[in-house]
């Protein structure tokens, strides 16, 4: 049952991911990516990372991709203007490189021992709940948390300074 669910979700995720590549219009790619994100969110729940699953939806699907689609819609650009020039050969490198990457990854996967998920106590102290994330965030991850705050502030300034109109001072 669970495996079946996993397979369905995985197929959705991969299909959506491939669709990102197949689509020519970035808008469709972005929408397709939402599918992958949502699928992953389901997997996160299956892995008991409930909080992260929700964050995935709220931030990724609900904010990051909104921004993407906003930009795509606002620019509504002819394809050419959004392109960056690359070496021609790079395209043909993609397949072998991807093969290499996959081979490496699957070598790892192949050799990994399968362990059982530990049985955890019920309730909010379990790994993956908001509580566990919240406590970790303020104890062991206190500094990374603050750095993330700084990072976001900086991104705010940086993004605004680039995107705002020329005349603005």
């Amino acid at each position: 049952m669970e495996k079946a669910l996993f397979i369905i979700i995985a197929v959705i995720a991969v299909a959506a991911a491939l669709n990102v590549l197949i689509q020519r219009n970035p808008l469709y790619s972005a929408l397709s990516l939402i599918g992958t994100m949502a699928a992953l969110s389901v997997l996160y729940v299956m892995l008991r990372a409930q909080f992260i699953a929700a964050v995935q939806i709220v931030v990724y699907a609900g904010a990051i991709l909104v921004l993407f689609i906003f930009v795509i819609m606002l620019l509504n650009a002819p394809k050419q203007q959004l392109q960056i020039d690359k070496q021609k050969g790079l395209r043909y490198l993609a397949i072998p490189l991807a093969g290499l990457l996959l081979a490496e990854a699957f070598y790892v996967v192949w050799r990994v021992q399968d362990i059982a998920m530990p049985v955890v106590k019920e309730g909010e102290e379990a790994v993956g709940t908001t509580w566990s994330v919240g406590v970790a965030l303020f104890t062991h991850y206190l500094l990374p948390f603050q750095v993330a705050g700084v990072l976001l502030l900086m991104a705010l300034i940086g993004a605004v300074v680039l995107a705002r109109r020329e005349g603005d001072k």
Partner: protein
Amino acid sequence: MVPLSWYLGLSALLFTIGAMGVFIKRNTITIFLCIELMLNGVNLTLVALSGFFGDVSGQLFVFMVIAVAAAEAAVGLAIIISIFRNRESLNVDDADTLKL
């Protein structure tokens, strides 16, 4: 019970698809989307490991990654906006001032 290796395999697949996309796509935004896809692949690995280990730190890492991805998206799209505006206003057809 889904084994750990399935999760890892899936995430590797997603990561690879993303990486491939970075190589073959030419549209900047799509490339960026592919990078997000790669990050998601990584996140799945981390969450899977974290879940199977019963250790929350992997999830915290993912939390940070998501936050950073948001910051990156904001800045990245701002850059794309700025280049777009310039290209549009300059009306340059093929603006490869910098060759690779």
